[in-house]
Structure formats: C-alpha cells, structure tokens
C-alpha cells in the first residue's frame, strides 16, 4: 500500500463511543480535502460486545478496511481489548491506550472517546480547527463544550508525553 495512506483502527466495547470516535476522525480528515473511507460493523456487537472501526485517509483510498497488520495507529478505549486487537498494528505502528490520559479528570466519562482522539491528534497532520468542526458536526450541541475540553485534555496529555 502506498505510504500516503494513514490507517487507524479504533477498538473498544459496545456503548463506549468507538463508532462516534471513528466518525469524528473520518469527518476531520474529510474536511482537510483528503480521500477518506471509514468502515465498521454494527448490529449484534452493539450489545456490549467488542467493536472496532477502521478509518483510512490519504490521496486515494481503495478498500474501506485496514488490511490485517497494517494499522499505523491503534486506539483502544477498553484496557481488556488491547490483547484482542494488538495484532492489527503494523511494524512501527503506535498503540494508544487509555493510560495516556487521566480518566478521572474527565468532566464526563462518556467523553473518553473524544479525549483519546485528542491524544491521536498529536500524531496526525490534521489542523485543530478541522477537529473542532468535526466534533461540532458529529455530536449534539449541548455536549460540544464538554467534548472539546476532553479533546484538549487528551491533546495536552499527549504533548507532555510525546
């Protein structure tokens, strides 16, 4: 695969906002003008089971699924899902787990998914306004502020450890 493609896999459990996080990431990348494909499976997995979603962006994306063991970034929202999914990471790929942020500092724990995107944002060449626009268009207005705070928190945490 051409190196101009960025492959991200987001994993977690049903109800954690895995699909919402991938929507926001895909939307942010899309707003930069890149080609984007986002893939997920829902249905039975909604009921608390394992959920993963693939987001790919670059000049020209073909398959919507990240080929096995080719993920550049693996974002895992539930600690017990790391083992299941770490095989998806490619050589030199970056694993981003919840230990990168202080979950207790989140004003609303449901914003964990967006905080994790904040961490991821430090690794990607997507300017911050695209992220904020994507958050605004993907979530209800009333939770925008709390999610932007979560995003900033993840972004700051990543800046410290980067």
């Amino acid at each position, binding site marked *: *695969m051409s190196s101009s493609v960025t492959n991200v896999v987001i994993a977690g*459990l*049903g109800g954690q906002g895995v699909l919402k996080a991938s*929507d926001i990431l*895909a*939307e942010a990348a*899309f*707003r*930069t*003008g*890149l*080609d*984007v*494909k*986002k*893939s*997920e*499976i*829902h*249905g*039975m*997995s*909604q*009921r*608390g*089971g*394992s959920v*993963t979603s693939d987001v790919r962006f670059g000049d020209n*994306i*073909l*398959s*919507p*699924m990240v*080929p*096995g063991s080719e993920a550049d970034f693996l974002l895992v929202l539930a600690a*017990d*899902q790391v083992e*299941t*999914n770490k*095989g998806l990471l490619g050589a030199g790929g970056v694993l981003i787990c919840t230990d990168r942020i202080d979950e207790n500092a989140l004003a609303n724990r449901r914003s964990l998914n967006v905080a994790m995107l904040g961490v991821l944002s430090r690794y990607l060449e997507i*300017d911050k*306004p*695209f992220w904020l626009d994507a958050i605004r268009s993907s979530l209800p207005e009333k939770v925008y502020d709390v999610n932007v705070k979560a995003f900033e928190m993840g972004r700051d945490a990543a800046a410290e450890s980067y």
Partner: protein
Amino acid sequence: MDFEKANVAERLLLSGNEAVARAALDAGVSLGTGYPGTPSTEILENFSRMGGPAQWAPNEKVAMEVALGASFAGARTLVTMKHVGLNVAADPLFTAAHTGVTGAMVIVTADDPGMASSQNEQDNRWYARAAGMPMFEPSDSQEAYDFTLRAIELSEEFAAPVMLRMTTRLCHSKTVVRPERSIAEAGRPEFHRNIKGRVMIPAYARPAHKRLRERLARIARWNETSGPNDTIQAGKDLGIIASGIAYAHAREATPDASFLKIGLTWPLPTETIAKFVRSVNRCVVIEEGDPVLVESLRAAGMTVEGKSEQYRFGELNVNRVRRILSGDDSVEAAAAKGKPPQLCKGCPHRVSFEILRRLNCIVAGDIGCYTLGVLPPFEAMDTCICMGASIGVGLGLRHVLPDEQARRVVSVIGDSTFVHSGITGLVEMVYNPPKTGHVVLILDNGTTAMTGLQEHPGTGRTLAHQPTGQIVFEDLAGALGIERVEVVDPTKDPAGYERILIEALDSGKLCVIIARRPCLLVAGKVREYEKKRSAETDAHE
C-alpha cells in the same frame, strides 16, 4: 492542508445507506418502505430524516406489495430489506418480475457476508437470476448513490422492477460522495388500467413470462453498450473481474492488474466480459460469497479462474484477495476473539430467560436481541431459525414429543418479530392445537431493539415516531381465540410472572403471555417523542 482553503462544498462523506437515501431523495421517490434489518435499516431512517416519505411495513412481503402498488400508479418507489427479508418478500418478487411496473421500483437487498448480524449467509445474487430481475451492485457510497439513480431510470425505461444489492461493508462504510442530481423529474401518479399486464391469472401470466424474458434480453443488450461497467486496461498478465466491495479489495491487492468492474451484474454483459477475458493471459473472478459470477461465465464458455471453497465463507478483504490470487489455500489465521455481545444490564429479557432456564423449558426462540438468551449465563434457547419460526417450531415439537416433554415447550418471540411473522403462527395454534396445549411468550419491549430501536405497528408510532394506529397484542390474541391471555411486567413482578408461566405450562390450554416492559434504551426516547408531541399539540391549541 489549510483549514480556510479546504473546499468542503459538493463533497459529502456518506455511508452506503445514506447514499442510497440521498439518491432516493434527489430522484423524488414518492414512497420508501421496508422492514428494519441489519445492515439495511438506516436507508429508510435517513430517507425520512432528509424529508423523504418513508414508512416501516410489518414485514418485507407487505412492503414489497405496497411499493409495487405505488409503482403501478406510476410512482418512483424504494423498498429496503436485509437479505433474509427478501425470502419473506420472494412471493411478490417473482410475480412482480412478470408484471413489471409502470413507475419505478428499486428493491434494495442488503446481504450480510460473514454474518455480522444474521442467521444465515445466503447470497442474494441468485435471486436476480431466479426471478429474472436486473441487479446493480455498487462498490462504494458514490456508486450506491449513482446506481440508485440509474436503477430508477432503468426501471422506468424498461418497466421492470430493479434490484440494488448492497452488502454489510458497503452499507456501513463511509466514503466520499459527490451527489449529482442527474435524473429527470418524476411523473405524477395516475391510474391507467392494464388488466392483462397486472392480473396474473395463467392466461395472462404466460405471455407476461415471455415478455419478462424478452425484456431481460433487451436489458442485456443495453448493458453491453450503456451499462455501468468500467474497464481499466493495464498489463496483459492478469485481469480481474469483480463487482461490489470485492472490487475495492482487489484493486488494492493487485493495483497493476487490468480490471473489469461490472455494475449491472444481471443480466450480464456477456460480450463485454468475453472480450475482456480474451484481452488478458490470466483472468480471475474475485467475488464475495457463492461462486455465482464465475459459474455464469464458465457456463458461457469463458476460461476464468475462481476461488477455492474456503473463500466462499465470510467477507473478503485485501489479504484474502491476495491469497486467492496466489492460490494460497492454507488454513487462515482465526480472527482474534472479541467479547461477545450480551443482554444489557437490567434488560427486561433477562428475567424471562432466568425463569425459562430455572423451569428447564424447551425454548423455541426467534430473531432479536433476546436471541442472546442462548448465550451464558442463560443458555435458555433451543432453536432459532427465522422471523416468526418460534411459534411453528414450538407447535411442531409439541405435536410429537412425549407428553412430559411437550409440556415444557415454550415459544419465545419479540414484539416486532411477532407482528412481522408471528400472527399466522397464532392462527395455526388455534387451528391445529397440540393436545398438551401451548405457551407463547411475547417479549414486548416496545421497540425493534436489535436493529436500533425502530418503531413497528405494536408501538403505535410511525417510522418518524408520530402517533398512528396501534396493534394491541392481547386483544389480537383474544380475538383469534387464544384461551388464556396474560400481561405481566417482568421487572416489577418477576415472581408473579413465573407463577403465571408455571400455571400456563400445566394448564394444557393455548396460552399467550405478554411480558411487557420497555427496552431500557428506548424508554427515554419514547418520553422525548411524547413530550415533543404534547408541546406540538399545545402550540396548536
């Protein structure tokens, strides 16, 4: 890229389902109907959200008949369902292919290779061949949009119902779409009598079948010259023939090959394909699911390679296509096992399965969230076949099992599933009662939970959550002649529920027990719908 300079106009990031909905809207579709089923559900939901006229039918057969009627009147119609839904709608499907339509009728079948959320892995490309109906197969959201428009045009031009085959990966993947509303305005519905064309008595159906075959032959010729089929002529070493999502995987797996992407996959553009096959030294058909296309091409005398049997199962992906192309038939590494789904904490279904397990019932189950009652810690389900089968299968077990076992048989069915296909089961129960009686448990959580909380005729709200007529299960069961009908609240009174179930099992009578308690996920939404409605009513007064 600079935030200010990025041009986001004219470009949308849409799932395949959203793209179909948007195309239906842009084409002025007069009626969208269907029954919820993963992965097709969001088509009508989005169509409705965008302002299109969309409604849920009690099942796919009714949906198809409603769409057919509307298309007889000259309207553009869209009918959506998952792959197994087309089995339910197969009766009108085959005859609609004979009658043809006056307006447009696009039938979306959303297949589920890999069975992310289905009970079987059937490949609905066979239906196009069996019914004699044209079939489009998009490979991304842009094509889902384009082909929906083209399907409407084809349907109007040839007066034929047209199928649009989606798959899970297409329905639920988002890709970039540039919607170009390139379609003529829809005509105004009006009735024109056409008795010989629409009344399928044998005398009129015989010529209708001949017209169907003649129409297919004309569409095949159209497909050769004007069909949505693309050739990428690269090297002569390898040529790939593909459709749908398999095309995207194959292009990535072997970017240097020549490609023929077939967009209208039935009737096939045989001459176009034969020409492509001759242009390359090695030609491989890459298709997900059954070897449908490769068998058709071989039957037409073409020398093409397919895939080995192991790749019939599950979805394809880039790595699997690479394996097919290299002839690698070695055992594939099993996908990492994730956490299985489970009934939510506090789900009212939990009580039912705890009781059924405790009473050691033989449980004929059905399709929905509650099918998860088969998994630990409950393991309280013995069969699950298709929508509504719990009642028929339960009755069959009752008819032949020794009495002491027959008395333990319970049919368990959800509310939406009951409306879909359970009512005729109750009719059978009254008409051919087992001598030990029977017990049907309707788990009424007031929504179609598994597919994402859709309304149905038992909720009394339309697809857009507006109030409408409501089917009351206890009244219906009583009217059908069920001897004992009980309504219980599984969460509030689990002990009373268990007592009633034990009595029903011991009674030897025909019993329907309705365990009524809203799904935890829908309760808040229902309050919102009602609040919104009372606010609207107040505003009008």
